[in-house]
């Protein structure tokens, strides 16, 4: 079992519904966000190409955030989901420094917070909140280890990339390009 996401950058219109859905589902405090939308213009003029994509913690396979955590508050659960236990976290921010995607932040209450892949929903067989609200169906969530899952099929038929692979964290969110 290895949870991951496949996100179609060709479908994403940058509406930020996923951001709002996450904030509502997970009670993310105002002014903070566990996911966000980036727009990148790629290429050299005049050969430009606009890419819009929704980003969040990549639930990496090689997790520097878990390694550098001095207390074990950052940990990996079943399915490769990376989580933080608030009352083990001392708020040292070592994990924030170690994430190349700046996916973590200090919650106003002092502990570090981040995307959980909505593990509370996943446990009930539902998709994460962001995936379930996307009006263009550009996000797909599922088991990357299962060759018959929707995510695996998309990855085997479409061209994809991960963000900053050179940072070496083996991210598990794939972008269809």
């Amino acid at each position, binding site marked *: 079992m290895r949870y991951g996401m496949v996100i179609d950058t060709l479908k994403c219109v940058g509406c930020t519904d996923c951001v709002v859905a996450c904030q509502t589902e997970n009670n993310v405090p105002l002014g903070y966000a566990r996911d966000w939308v980036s727009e990148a213009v790629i290429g050299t003029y005049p050969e430009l190409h606009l890419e819009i994509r929704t980003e969040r913690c990549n639930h990496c396979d090689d997790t520097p955030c878990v390694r550098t955590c001095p*207390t074990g508050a950052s940990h990996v659960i079943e399915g490769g989901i990376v989580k933080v236990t608030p009352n*083990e976290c001392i708020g040292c*921010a070592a994990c924030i420094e170690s994430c190349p995607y*700046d996916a973590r932040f200090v919650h106003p*209450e002092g502990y570090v917070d981040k995307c959980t892949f909505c593990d509370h929903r996943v446990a009930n067989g539902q998709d994460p909140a962001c995936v379930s609200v996307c009006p263009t169906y550009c996000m797909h969530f599922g088991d990357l280890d299962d060759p018959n899952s929707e995510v695996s099929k998309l990855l085997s038929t479409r061209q994809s990339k991960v963000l900053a692979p050179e940072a070496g964290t083996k991210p598990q969110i794939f972008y269809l390009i």
Partner: protein
Amino acid sequence: MEEIITSGRNIPHIDPILDIWGLPISLYLFLGGLAAGITIFASVVTILKREQQYSTAVKIAPIITPIALAVGLFFLLIDLHHILYAWQLFTTIRLESPMSWGAWTLLVITPLSIVWVAMYLKDILPTFDFSGCCSGILKLLFVENNSDEKLNWEWKYSFLVDFEKFMLDNKRVFAWIMLVLGIVVGVYTGILLSAFNARPLWNTEILGPLFLVSGLSTGAAAIMWLSNDHNEIKMFSKIDLFLILIELFLIVHMMMGFVAGPEIKAYAAGFFLGGEFTAVFWVLFVGLGLVIPLLLETMELIGRKIPIGIVAFLILAGGLLFRIIMVDAGQVIRYLY
């Protein structure tokens, strides 16, 4: 290649740039390096049996160590955002996490550095004013004893007398232990940053040695400043000169490695070679904090009289500035994607 990023993310309390580690962490790294430097010198002098010649290094300067470590730990603690849970640090040891083994090392070295000071307390403070205002506090640990001409006190408890004797008899073994711990702390201050793959500026194997050498240099500066003995000042300014040369070499080596390295490293180097950190780094840190002290120390060596306090101050201020720049720049420079 991404040429233009029109809009990245825009989350008010998180973006636009990471600055979660600020001045307290820089001060923590600086004080840790200073304490490590002094400890290493005090230990080496003891191991080489030169305590008489370099008494400031062994007896006086180490007074700074526990103070620097305690203040440094204080800065680390105030930088924790979930401070009420700080005790969680000491519920496990995680060797993969520099934050974890570093905190444990500090927990061990801080009391030992107090023992070091206590070991030489009779030499540093041979007479106490038992009639003064603090006599109540003094009498908790010490008793008045005028049997010796120079010394007017003795430890109040016999186990402390025995312990002092035991430590003095075994001071070279103790010095070896402190030497190892000092090196661990000195290297730790660099590894804390260089362990982060995610930060291209920090993630270089040169940072560990560079922070260690810089820590040693600040330690030597402190000893020079405190010492009244001309030979000792001369010796430590020679050592310091050598350390500054190594530091300069490591800095150039690091920058050249960046420029010749992968795109992201060259991008990082750009911040120091024309970019926003160019002036503070090369003029204030390298210029005022390394090159000027280097020149002044060279003049001292060829026999000119120079105010050693200024040299020491420049080196110490440079050491702090270096850590402030590295902590700050390291967070500004991130992977592009």
